């Protein structure tokens, strides 16, 4: 069964994603991100949840629950306010977790 794609972010960042057929959830307050993520993820309607980097880092504890589950995949994307580099930092975290130290992307 096909599941939908969600985008959670501030009003400006999510606008375009609604136009290409994603379900958008506006959250202008980082403190409310975790609660919104919980509602969206537990509705079981979404296979992928994109979040703006700002909200992504604000909901770290809530996200942990979904690390081991194949869906929903929670992915950070840069919002209109610019790129904070969380996405690439996350890669380093994966390598660190797997190898023990970041041997691939360390500059």
């Amino acid at each position, binding site marked *: 069964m096909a599941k939908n794609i969600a985008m959670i972010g501030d009003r400006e960042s999510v606008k375009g994603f609604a136009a290409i057929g994603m379900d958008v959830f506006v959250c202008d307050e980082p403190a409310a991100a975790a609660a919104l993520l919980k509602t969206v993820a537990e509705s079981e309607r979404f296979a992928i949840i994109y979040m703006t980097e700002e909200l992504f880092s604000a909901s770290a504890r809530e996200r942990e629950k979904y690390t*081991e589950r194949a869906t929903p995949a929670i992915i950070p994307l840069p919002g209109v306010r610019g790129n904070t580099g969380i996405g690439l930092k996350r890669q380093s975290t*994966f390598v660190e977790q*797997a190898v023990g130290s970041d041997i691939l992307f360390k500059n």
Partner: protein
Amino acid sequence: MAVMNVSPTRMQMTALKKQLTTAIRGHKMLKDKRDELMRQFIELVGMNRRLRESVEKRLAESSAFFISASAAMSKKALDSSLMSQKSKTGVETTYKNVMSVDVPQFEICRESENQGDIYPYGFAFTSFELDNAVESLNELLPDLIRLAEVEKSCEMMAAEIERTRRRVNSLEHVMIPRYEETIKYIAMKLEENDRSSRTRLMKVKDMLLDKAHNYSGKYSPKE
């Protein structure tokens, strides 16, 4: 390494030897699993980085288009143009088993009558920047989905590699040496028992012989 708290019997030793064989076999298999997972992970993580860099770059371009569009159009018009959806985008999820990790595979499915017509608004009251923005985002969609797939796989595989690595290390540095040491301890204990009962027997034999033939002269000759 501490010896396990077991009774030093032959039966226990046989059981421990069996466990040691299993542990060694398990260790080898887990090591192979870890190596293969690591190989696939390194491949994926490289792909993930390339994808992310390209997606982030294109997303920034698309954001720039949106900013131009919002400058050219009124906020209300822009909102009403974008918030009505023409097609719904979903993904079909299947799972691929990579070394016992079920990683998701996403495939786009769109519920739209006309695949070519992506714009959810009429062209009369909107600016061309908005068309560019929506088009660029639409072109980005397959890569976005691919990014989600690869990144989730990396996340799950990293967790599995960490778990497997811990298991391999625990088998290699804790379990196997402990079994080996306990087996050695039981073997030595059994040998010790063997030696002690043998000396006891020899002693008893000596005493019996002495009693029979009176070598030491301790016993008075029989009448």
